[in-house]
């Protein structure tokens, strides 16, 4: 037999919870907004001419592009950097390009002291000049990027910059 008190109890619970859930929905959506934002599409960027590189001597090049950060639009400025490694003559790929972001935890990979490979200053990940990992710190080798060489006698090297998910053995693109 439903009582008046029972009815009020039910009504209070119902009302309170309805309001709470109604308020939680926009709140959660607001907080999770970053998940709805897509990363930007990237074009090939010309970085250098082949003659500027010497085989086996990696050089870092900045990726210079406009950047939209929430409500701020930044003019062209360096947003990341890549390492270009020219391969010996006759190799299939003339130039290898690696993102300087460490696949371990995204610190910037720099040349090792002996210049015979790369290393990360944060947790000591080591890589060879071919980007292959040399110790177990990084879950995978350095992330290779798409390279395009023009048909000129001294080809222009263009690279499509991209970011990949750190801490994953598999190279997964970050949207």
């Amino acid at each position, binding site marked *: 037999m439903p009582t008046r008190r029972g009815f009020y109890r039910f009504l209070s619970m119902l009302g309170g919870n309805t309001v709470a859930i109604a308020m939680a929905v926009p709140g959660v959506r607001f907080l999770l907004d*970053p998940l709805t934002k897509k*990363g930007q599409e990237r074009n090939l960027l010309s970085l250098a001419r082949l003659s500027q590189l010497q085989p086996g001597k990696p050089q870092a090049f900045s990726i210079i592009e406009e950047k939209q950060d929430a409500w701020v639009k930044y003019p062209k*400025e360096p947003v990341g950097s890549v390492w270009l490694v020219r391969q010996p003559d006759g190799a299939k790929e003339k130039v290898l390009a690696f993102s300087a972001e460490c696949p*371990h935890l995204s610190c910037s990979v720099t040349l090792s002291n002996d210049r015979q490979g790369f290393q990360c200053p944060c947790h000591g990940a080591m890589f060879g000049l071919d980007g292959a990992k040399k110790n177990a710190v990084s879950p995978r080798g350095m992330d290779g990027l798409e390279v395009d060489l023009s048909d000129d006698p001294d080809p222009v090297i263009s690279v499509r910059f991209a970011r990949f998910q750190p*801490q994953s053995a598999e190279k997964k693109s970050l949207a």
Partner: protein
Amino acid sequence: MLNNIIAWLDDRTALPTITRRFLDRPVPVNKRWGHALGFALLTTLIVDLITGLLLMTTYSPSSTMAWGSVYYITYQMDAGWFVRGLHRYASYGAVILGGLYLFRLVLVGAYRAPKEMHWWLASAVLLLILVAGVSGNVLPWDQRGYWAAIVETNMAGGTPIIGPMLKKVILGGSQAGSQTLTRFYGLHVALIPSLMLFCGWVFAMLFVFRRRADDETVLTEPYWPHQSCCDIALASLTVALICALTVATHGYSLDAPADPSSDDYPARPEWYFLPLNLLVHEMAGREYIATMVVPGVATTGLFLLPLVAKLLPRKLGSALAFLFISTLAIAALSLTGTAIYRDFESTSYRIAREKADTARDRAIQLARDGIPPEGDSYVLSRDPLHHGGKMFEKKCLGCHPFGGQVQGEPSAPDLKDFGTRTWIRGLLEKPTSDAYFGKVPILDGMKTWKESSKLSPAELDAIADFVATFATIDPEVSPADWYAAPTTKNHPGYTLFQKNCVDCHTMGDPSQAEKKTQPSPDLFGWGSPRWTSRMIKNPSRSTHYGHLEADQKMPAFADQLTENDISALVRYIRGDYTPPPPPAPVAPTSK
């Protein structure tokens, strides 16, 4: 009178009664200093709350202005360094006291009934202190905070399944930026303090409405005034130590503004996360042990302890609890020690840290002149010394030495002071020197000239003086007008220049180059920002080195450098920048 007011207040609110019950609550007489630990912890949190409110009156939570506002607090505001130092060091105090407090609770078995709530609250507060430390570290948006945020959020991003989404939500986007800072700010100044205040309120309620004594056999006395005196004594000592540390280090240091493009910043977390950071290093390939398993087990252990203790025989439970907390403590201490020792020993860390310190000192020096409205990062990115130097090292040093500094085998002139009288005088003296065209056999024009030239040092001086004025030619002035100007005609070096140099070099009309003895760069405006930036952008111009074969030319850098990069480079080469102060500025050390 006062009694009447209190009576009235009590009638309306019961606050005086509650306060009295709180002050008169029975406390054991045998554990005075142990009890005082909790009050000292509370004191550090109150110091953090008050200094935090003070900092909020100036701090600007924007990724473009945060660094500047923290710079202003630290270096410009009266007592700013002290307030900010207190805030940071009080949080260190809270971490240490929080740890000690938990340790003591284990020793006295205060996780057992009826004190489970006590234990859970203390554990929750310690975790909140750690989260506050992590989020607060990011707020200055300096290199240290920025890179710590990157590494920490990437660790969170390694969580199975939800990791990548979690990281994006914490960062407020796929990259660290504006919303990263606002999110950490909200967490740091609103959410965490609210949760702590809630824990504090529950804590107070535990004391006020305690239903039973902890241990009937222990002799007790009212909290006020004996125990309160011990509490105040330890709290004062804590505050004194925090003040002493603040004064000794002259506040907490501020690193250079966040620079996402910096390529060798040695990111390190706050010292209390060094153990986990080292574990990340050691557990290579199995980071989840350091980022998930260890913190997970430690936290779960803390919260399950009262329940586990209930299930086990008393002695076994105590032993287990002690073992658990001591293992945590010993592991944390030894890992921290190892981490600090490793960095101390590591050459690459030292070099990277020195570079970061140089950038920091420079940023702080330049910030004195004000921070551009576009944001903090422009303090350094527009500085010829810092940014131009970095660009030179990346783009030029492979071929051009700089003041004798080389990288690899030089194949071009030394560019230190290029465009100034010093450089041109040196060239006229000995063009074949390695600093000039000694390493560039293809550019033998000056060498040929020098071999047949019989000019005296005084005459060379005059020419150098004259050529050095080219850099100051107004870009709006045409070559004809410039030639006609009396300042040109009457210059002591004018006649010598006309006699000796224009056989090869054109002056503003490169179409005349074919009539010259040997193709050479046009010297009109030589060394000026325009001339040099054209050289950097495209050396193949007819006014520069268009006459060389493709494989002999310097590469064009127009696509690889922004206007700002080039202007910084040009000014760096000429030495046209605010000189760094001779001794390092008085800045707090980084450790």
